[in-house]
């Protein structure tokens, strides 16, 4: 049986992690169908049909799907699941919220946040904030799997021409009502997919001081991250948090500034290709994962860093 991929989108276009989830789905079985549930999401459905790994698109439209409420999405997917061996989506807040609700209805034990497909029933996933890796075999007839997007490359986005089939909407779940979403708009790259991330921790001492980080991020075309301590202290909003309960990032370059390196933070960034740590405490655990450590006062180091960047003739973007 084929694999059913749940597409994440904003009713206009696919959200980027759908592409990573599509890659993971195609590693489970080459026959990948994708379901897209939304309101006026035709354009996103078309994008989905153009992914070469997707063989068929199932489109479900309804006003009550506009805000992606798990309680509304679940009945449609549970019904479709009859025809599939696996249900797959990203392990971001969209998939984390949705998939267990589906799995419980299907009476299947979900495998969360996989980082590798070993075989169609066996997966590798981090546990204990990435301090151990577990190889898990699922013995359920239907498997619900969420994938860690940064562990799979995004699939190709052009060249496919999957047929788009309409599927009937399910009834509305009226006990949950969407009120509002406060999205932080930014011209910078998304934290989850950025090539470079510059992150600040408690050492920044104030929200104002984050402008030292912003400057450098702008210069490098980087996203801005933060430790939980910095978010808790109110220096920066929650959508910047990197770590076990925040976002997991795997950029080419991760620059940790004034971050001590709690286990929970390391869980979100230690797979980055190159890690830089700037911290005045030479014993800080962040240095144990850093390729380049600079023991220095960040309030002196960051302006110097900016100066040095300004001296460079070219900067990769």
């Amino acid at each position, binding site marked *: 049986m084929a694999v059913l991929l749940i597409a994440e989108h904003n009713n206009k276009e696919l959200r980027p992690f759908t592409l990573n989830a599509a890659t993971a789905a195609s590693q489970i079985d080459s026959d990948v169908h994708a379901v897209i549930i939304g309101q006026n999401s035709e354009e996103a459905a078309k994008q989905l049909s153009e992914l070469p790994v997707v063989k068929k698109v199932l489109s479900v439209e309804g006003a009550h799907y506009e805000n992606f409420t*798990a*309680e509304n999405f*679940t009945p449609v997917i549970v019904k479709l699941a009859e025809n599939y061996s696996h249900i797959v989506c990203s*392990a971001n*807040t*969209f998939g*984390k*919220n*949705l*998939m*267990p*609700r*589906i*799995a*419980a*209805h299907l*009476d*299947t*034990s*979900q*495998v*969360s*946040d996989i980082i590798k497909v070993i075989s169609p029933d066996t997966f590798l996933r981090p*546990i*204990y904030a990435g*301090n*151990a*890796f*577990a*190889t*898990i075999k*699922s*013995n359920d007839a239907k498997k619900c799997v969420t994938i860690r997007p940064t562990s799979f490359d995004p699939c190709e986005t052009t060249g496919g021409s999957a047929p788009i089939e309409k599927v009937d909407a399910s009834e509305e*779940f009226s006990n*949950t*009502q969407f*009120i509002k*979403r406060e999205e*932080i708009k930014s011209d910078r790259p998304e934290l989850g997919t950025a090539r470079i991330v510059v992150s600040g921790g408690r050492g920044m001492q104030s929200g104002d001081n984050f402008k030292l980080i912003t400057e450098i991020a702008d210069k490098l075309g980087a996203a801005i991250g933060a430790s*939980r301590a910095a978010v808790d202290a109110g220096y920066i909003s929650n*959508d910047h948090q990197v770590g*076990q*309960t925040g976002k997991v990032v795997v950029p080419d*370059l991760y620059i940790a500034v004034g971050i001590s390196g709690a*286990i929970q933070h390391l869980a979100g960034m*230690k797979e980055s290709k*190159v*890690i*830089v740590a700037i911290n005045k405490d030479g014993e800080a655990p962040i*240095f144990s*994962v*850093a390729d*380049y*450590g600079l023991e*220095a006062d960040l309030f002196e*180091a960051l302006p*110097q860093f900016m*100066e040095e960047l300004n001296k*460079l003739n070219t900067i*990769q973007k």
Partner: protein
Amino acid sequence: MKILVAVKRVIDYNVQIRVKEDGTGVVTDNVKMSTNPPDDNAIEEAVKIKEAGKATEVVAVTVGEEKAQETVRKALAVGADRGIHVKVDGILEPLAVSKILQKIVDKEKPDLVFMGKQAIDDDCNQTGQMLSALLNWPQATFASKIDVKENKLEVTREIDEGLETIEINVPAIVTCDLRLNEPRYASLPNIMKAKKKPIEEIAASDLGVDVSPRLEQLKVEEPPKRKAGIKVANVAELVQKLKNEAKVI
């Protein structure tokens, strides 16, 4: 309004995890155990709602081995009124836990069920959503703010894009994020008082729930180690290394 709060006993978040040499799991012998951190936020929120006069009773429940009862006792010490310990040994998957909690909900008939959004041992992030599916109740996951209104809650959720606010009718499930509140510490008098609060013990086998695992944990291993890095002397050297050695800027 009555609030049921589910708590889990896990390895303390400050403990450095060690993988067993035989690959069967992680070392738990003689390791400090604590309440799963966001479960502390769940208890705190329930107690605060009661203190604000909007709830009449807070019941803490845990599912697990003999020693899991410590987490219920701790919940009682910070303000829960009574406890339930569903006793069961061995590995429990979130699906099994949610089926057990469903039975407890049938029995206790709470208006709200709170729990942490994720346990920091298996990092599954499933139980709350599964319980709400089994009960067909609304779910508010990753809550960072809860306003109790008449027969409904307004909940702010932490999502990847920022914040989302939803309104859910009770009965409902809320899974709590770490920023929901600042959990209090138990005072010594309250720890003493908690010893007198009742904890009902229930054998999972009496609930008629199949808790047998569906997943096989074939192996647990250490993640690949990063190679040791270097310390640079100054910013100029750092930028030069990034440009010419790592070639990332």
